[in-house]
């Protein structure tokens, strides 16, 4: 996938990527993995030791070959040949077995680390406040849970092990070469330094280009995603060409970066292939001269060249291993960006025992009370006014209060404060006299049941989706809730209430989803009910039926209902008008219609003041706004 490697929250996702972190900080990042690595440290050690032994036996094999050529072959010693042959076989099998073992040791433990990290991330994310999720696109979180986890697992499996192993193999190999023939060894080792430097130079530039290409890939995916999600609008206005041009421009940008990557890769490989060949060619010539002069044997030359060849990879791999370690460090940082975020309950004051809520002595049946509640979104630009500037509202026990206000006045936001999806910035909210900040979240959310404006169904059966509101509710409660929400259509579904819906199931219409969300809210017969414009997507027939049934539910419940329409308002006993961040009027529908011009305008559209005229209708008289 493509939307992966930006290390910051979504809003800045398309900005150029940050510079590579310095290596010491990469080490520090990787050290944070210790708590997860600790339980498997012995497996990792065993794996490293196996890899080391395997690599060393691979290094010894050329020496045995040298002995074969120099000893038995030169001296026509058949017995010696068999001994060397057996040795060769044992070493070969040892090497193969050890490399198998190396993987076997860590296969399950590492998969376990990945699972644990992902489970922790998921659990953490579920407990982070909604304001955190507002800031992070779900794709960004997803890439942390999938590709980043995978990068980390791979780092533990390969680069970590082979950084150790390859360095040791390299040193050992150089040692062997110097023992065999120090002059040849010198010739061969000389290019190693420029090779490592050039490799890491290219790797650095390459990973910068790779990061850029990942970002551009993400942007490309965004254009694509929008063009598919907004297909109705594009088709409506016949704008495919505009969008196609945008997509093409993005794709060409990406191609440019990919070609740059290819050029870097080409140069890198030229160096990787060229330099060692150069060294080998030279040492071959020098070696032949030495053999001819008798200062070394043919067997030594063969053994030397084999050893030199087998050292090529440990050297070349260093750049790659380091680059990968850097990437794993970034992935670890990204993981801890989420893990370090403060969970919703971190700032909680002393929490009373859950039972305290019912036992709360004072005004036992006080209903919902908001006093001087102030709120602004944590990500609101500095300097913008608070959204809620001091809301005072009392919903009496058993009463249904409608909440009305202009589009964008903060009604939905206000409803989200009751179950503490967002934390208020000032004032207090009490339920039956108890401050909601003193009620444990789980308990609070069991007390307050919600239906959201945008009804979300999860990949589960209809009954599971509805019974989310009350997991232990009996079958009759489910049936009753479906009846209240006029969701009888579910009985006609292929498998009735067991039909799978949501992302992986049957897709339902907006009105159908809204009715299931309503059923979910009422199924547990909650003490407090919060409904956000619960009937907006229903057609007139259904709306009337739902209203009728809902009235009975609301009769015995303390409820706050966001309403855009007179018909919904009529479900309520009283109405509160939200304007300019506070409640400006409370009363019955009729009282407010009589006394409050703003409410009248909101409900009937009759303009009463001169000021209202400026809100709308500035179109030119002849109706030709355009052309």
């Amino acid at each position, binding site marked *: 996938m493509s939307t992966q490697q930006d290390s910051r929250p979504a809003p800045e996702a398309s900005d150029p990527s940050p510079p590579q972190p310095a290596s010491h900080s990469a080490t520090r990042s990787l050290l944070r993995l210790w708590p997860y690595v600790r339980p498997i440290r012995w497996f990792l050690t065993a794996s490293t030791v196996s890899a080391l032994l395997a690599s060393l036996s691979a290094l010894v094999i050329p020496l045995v070959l040298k002995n074969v050529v120099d000893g038995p072959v030169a001296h026509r010693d058949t017995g010696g040949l068999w001994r060397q042959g057996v040795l060769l076989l044992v070493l070969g099998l040892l090497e193969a077995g050890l490399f198998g073992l190396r993987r076997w040791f860590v296969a399950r433990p590492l998969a376990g680390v990945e699972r644990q990290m992902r489970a922790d991330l998921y659990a953490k994310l579920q407990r982070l406040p909604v304001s955190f999720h507002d800031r992070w696109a779900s794709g960004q979180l997803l890439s942390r849970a999938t590709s980043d986890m995978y990068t980390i697992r791979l780092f533990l499996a390969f680069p970590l092990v082979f950084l150790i192993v390859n360095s040791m193999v390299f040193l050992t190999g150089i040692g062997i070469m110097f023992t065999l023939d120090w002059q040849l060894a010198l010739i061969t080792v000389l290019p190693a330094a420029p090779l490592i430097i050039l490799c890491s130079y290219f790797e650095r530039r390459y990973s910068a280009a790779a990061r850029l290409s990942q970002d551009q890939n993400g942007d490309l995916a965004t254009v694509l995603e929008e063009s598919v999600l907004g297909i109705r609008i594009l088709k409506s206005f016949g704008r495919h060409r505009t969008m196609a041009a945008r997509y093409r421009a993005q794709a060409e940008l990406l191609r440019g970066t990919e070609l740059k990557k290819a050029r870097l890769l080409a140069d890198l490989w030229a160096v990787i292939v060229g330099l060692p060949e150069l060294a080998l060619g030279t040492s071959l010539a020098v070696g032949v001269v030495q053999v001819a002069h008798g200062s070394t044997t043919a067997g030594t030359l063969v053994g030397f060249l084999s050893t030199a060849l087998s050292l090529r990879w440990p050297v070349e791999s260093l750049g790659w291993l380091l680059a990968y370690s850097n990437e794993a460090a970034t992935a670890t940082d990204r993981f801890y960006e989420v893990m370090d975020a403060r969970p919703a309950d971190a700032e909680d004051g002393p929490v009373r025992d859950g039972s305290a809520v019912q036992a709360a002595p004072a005004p036992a049946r006080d209903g919902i009370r908001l006093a001087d509640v102030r709120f602004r979104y944590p*990500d609101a630009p500095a300097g913008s006014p608070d959204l809620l500037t001091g809301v005072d509202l009392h919903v009496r026990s058993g009463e249904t209060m409608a909440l009305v206000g202009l589009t*964008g006045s903060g009604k939905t936001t206000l409803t989200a404060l009751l179950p503490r999806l967002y934390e208020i910035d000032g004032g207090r909210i009490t339920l039956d006299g108890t401050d909601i900040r003193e009620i444990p979240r789980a308990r609070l959310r069991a007390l307050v049941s919600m239906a959201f404006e945008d009804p979300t169904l999860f990949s589960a059966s209809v009954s599971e989706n509805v019974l989310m509101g009350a997991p232990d509710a009996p079958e009759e409660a489910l049936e009753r809730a479906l009846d209240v929400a006029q969701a009888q259509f579910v009985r006609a579904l292929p498998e009735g209430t067991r039909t799978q819906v949501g992302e992986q199931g049957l897709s339902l219409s907006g009105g159908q989803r809204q009715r299931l969300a309503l059923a979910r809210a009422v199924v547990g017969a909650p003490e407090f009910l919060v409904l956000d414009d619960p009937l907006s997507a229903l057609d007139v027939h259904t709306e009337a039926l739902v209203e009728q049934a809902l009235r009975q539910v609301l009769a015995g419940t303390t409820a706050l209902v966001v309403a855009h329409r007179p018909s919904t308002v009529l479900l309520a006993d009283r109405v509160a008008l939200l304007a300019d961040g506070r409640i400006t009027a409370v009363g019955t529908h009729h009282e407010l219609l009589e006394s409050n011009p703003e409410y009248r305008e909101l409900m009937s559209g009759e303009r009463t003041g001169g000021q209202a005229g400026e809100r709308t209708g500035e179109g030119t008289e002849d109706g030709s706004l355009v052309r």
Partner: protein
Amino acid sequence: MSVTERDLTEAEQTELLEEAALQEPDLQEDKAPAGPGDGEDIPVPPGAPRALLRSLLGPHRARVVLAMVMITIQQAALQVGPLLVSYAIDRGIPALRAHDWGPLIAVTAGYLGCAAVATLLQRSFIRLSGVINQAILLEMRRRIFRHAQALSLDFHERYTSGRIISRATSDVDTVRELLNEGLQELLSVILSVVYIAVLLIVMDWRLGLASLASVVPIYLFTRGYRRRSQAIYRRSRTAVAQVIVRFTETMNGIRPVQAFRREAANEEAFAVSNGEYTDANAQGLLSMAQFVASSRATANIWITGVVVWGAVLVTQGSLQLGVLAAFVLYLRRLFDPVDQVAMFLNSYQSASAALEKIAGLLAHEPSVPEPGEPVALPAKTEDAIPGRAVDFDGVAFSYRTGKQVLPRFDLRIPAGQSVAVVGATGAGKSTLAKLLARFYDPTEGKVTLDGVDLRELSTPELRRGVVMVTQESFLFSGTVAENIAIGRPDASREEVEEAARAIGAFEFIAALPEGFDTDVRKRGGRISAGQRQLVAFARALLADPAVLILDEATSSLDVPGEQAVQRAMATVLAGRTAVIIAHRLSTVEIADRVLVMDQGQVVEDGAPADLVSGTGRFAGLHQAWRESLV
């Protein structure tokens, strides 16, 4: 000679790539049917993937041939090395002892020359193949995009957005992976095996054939591994799709998750998918471990056998020492690519599956095709009203499954008339609107605009004629102004602002942190559902169509917002033909005419006042609504 660290680590690097491919989940593949009676995958016409590949490669034929030539020569130059070593030992040393420097200089020059050629060709090959690959990918992306845009709405509703997105992202990526890494690898491997085989047989046919016999057991191991890994690979893909679906669903629905205290239950469910995925991964690693160990062991046994036999031959005098040395060096290279071939087969499998899916999508004919010879709408006279007449002429519509939605009917809407359509969910209101917007074509009859069949209009002409505003008000990334300007991209800022003003959206937009230039996806760009619908309307005002369709487009508006829309219809859009599907009877009142639909048929048709005073369904509904307003 034996397996060196290099072989294994390179193999492991290949494994990284291979596993990376595993990480590209195809969410939608395991998806259950997305709607009643549909959700079937599009059938892939036989040969379509191959034809697609041919048409993509076609323009680059010359470059492809050049690249092949390059890699052939490059491999040859690279494989010559050990041969030169053997020559140096067998000829160079004796010659040098006889004070003849000729052979040594020749060998050294040859070795260095080959190295230089191999290096330069390697570099050119990577660059050239980069150019080819990127051209192919660009063309493939472009085709998928344009095709997806051309496909009709009913296709999109059936195929789901996620699948199209994964076609153009993860499937294209899989193909790219193969193009970038796989093909080069495969070519090198095949060439090196062929070269080495030939060289070995030429140097000594006995040892050569013995060495090549190792192909048999190694082929068997590879085949066995491939079968196992394929099964594991499938399991892993399914499992990761599960993980991702659960994950995104939770994150996108975090409000209900927290409000309904689903955290613990979700964790349990997530643990199941997560465990399944982990298990598949561990299985994959274990089977890899087994394959590596067994194939390496085989290779090492074989090498030992050949070397010992070779040494025996040397002691018997029937083989030269230099030839044995060359054998030793070549054998190492022969067994190098065993792991890579297995990896390549895996990634080839997934890429060809991806290519098949892409080909399937591209082979799907748009069911609402562009006309071959478009007809223009009749020109408007100066004083005519801007609206156009709409005719449904013997129109009927059924789903592909055969289920009839609209039985045959006729309907005439004169130019400039506004028609409200009411009825219960599933009565066919939206289908009527979609036929008029030509999101669907009727199964029977025709829909005409001023007498011209919609099917004969080019897209730009059609969209000047008919524009539809729907209930879902998606905003594209970019500023508010850009979102409105989708209605008419060449509109000036003044026209955009005027359209917003006319719909009563100017104030809230101006109050955003950066006014009309506020990015809707960034900080402070919080726009409520009602406000989105106003933006959608402003877009339609700017497009200024002859016929405007509103499909439940006012559902989230409050009363003032709805009235602003009505005022705009009466002033800015006066004289346009309008079809309004509404839940709200308040919207209906401003219409010239009301159609009541039930089960696909128009059951009442008349002016609002007439229907209200009658005794039909509309009168009953209206009565109930009136009462609710008191």
